[in-house]
């Protein structure tokens, strides 16, 4: 199954979940996740099923104005 994480394409096994995508990019806390522009709370990372061509954003804190 092809998914896009932070604009990079990855192949994941079918029936992968958000936690699998986080593992493949070695995400380091703190972070937050959105799939196809919808927020996925931390409590759902282990169960939120991914689909072919899902766009996953993993974001981290930075400075801001």
């Amino acid at each position, binding site marked *: 199954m092809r998914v896009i994480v932070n604009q990079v394409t990855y192949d994941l096994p079918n029936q992968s979940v958000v936690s699998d995508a986080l593992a493949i990019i070695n*995400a380091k806390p703190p972070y937050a996740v959105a799939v196809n522009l919808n927020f996925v709370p931390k409590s759902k990372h282990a169960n939120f099923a991914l689909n072919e061509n899902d766009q996953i954003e993993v974001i981290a804190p930075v400075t801001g104005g």
Partner: protein
Amino acid sequence: MNAPLPTNLNKADTLVLYGESFASRLLLGTSRYPSPQVLENAVQASNPGMITVSLRRQGTSTTEAHSGFWDLLKKMAVPVLPNTAGCHSPQEAITTAQMAREVFETDWLKLELIGDDYTLQPDVLRLVQTAETLIKDGFKVLPYCTEDLILCQRLVDVGCQAVMPWAAPIGTGQGPLNPYAMKLLRDRLKVPLLVDAGLGLPSHACTVMEWGFDGVLLNTAVALADDPIVMAKAFAMAVDAGRAAYLSGAMKPQESAQASTPLVGTPFWHQS
């Protein structure tokens, strides 16, 4: 020993937003400083009520460069105000807000919805509805907006308990470009008003505080100064000075000269 003079400044005069009090009327951005150490020292020098923060994709050069920022935030222990900088649609802003709430563990939000990349002018036509959605979702929304009276009124109508009109486009440092509209806004709206963006000098901050604005939010004017630490302190002092002047009640300008020194008893003076 004489008793302290009675003055408006003796009263508790803290900035209150959504029922919460803040230590200072200066809100400070955390971007574009020469180094994290300079940022930390600037924050210490100015003691801001809140500092603004943001979110970017993990694993990019931006987040790699900010790998120590999270620890610095915890060390500085100043309330944080996440922004939605760079969002161009209501959905982007709403999702970014929800992600920020989880990462920073706060309901506070500086809502930025950009309508034009060249001027960074907010998308005023979609800002109100976006603010309303976020307020219904429990956010304490501080919307970055223009100085348009009706826009700001509509933001208040949907539940914004404070609004943040710009003085000039973000990062320009030009100071208030439309004093008439800003003073009118202050006169017409009773909610806290914080000037966000476009201030370049402490005198700009002092001026808008003298007009009765409740606080200022700035970043570039401090971060790009030759000495950001001293400039941060200068802005903090200017905000306090402007607030004190506003509370003190300024004199009315006069058309003609009026001697300060008493005329009666002036030596060598002869009535003609």
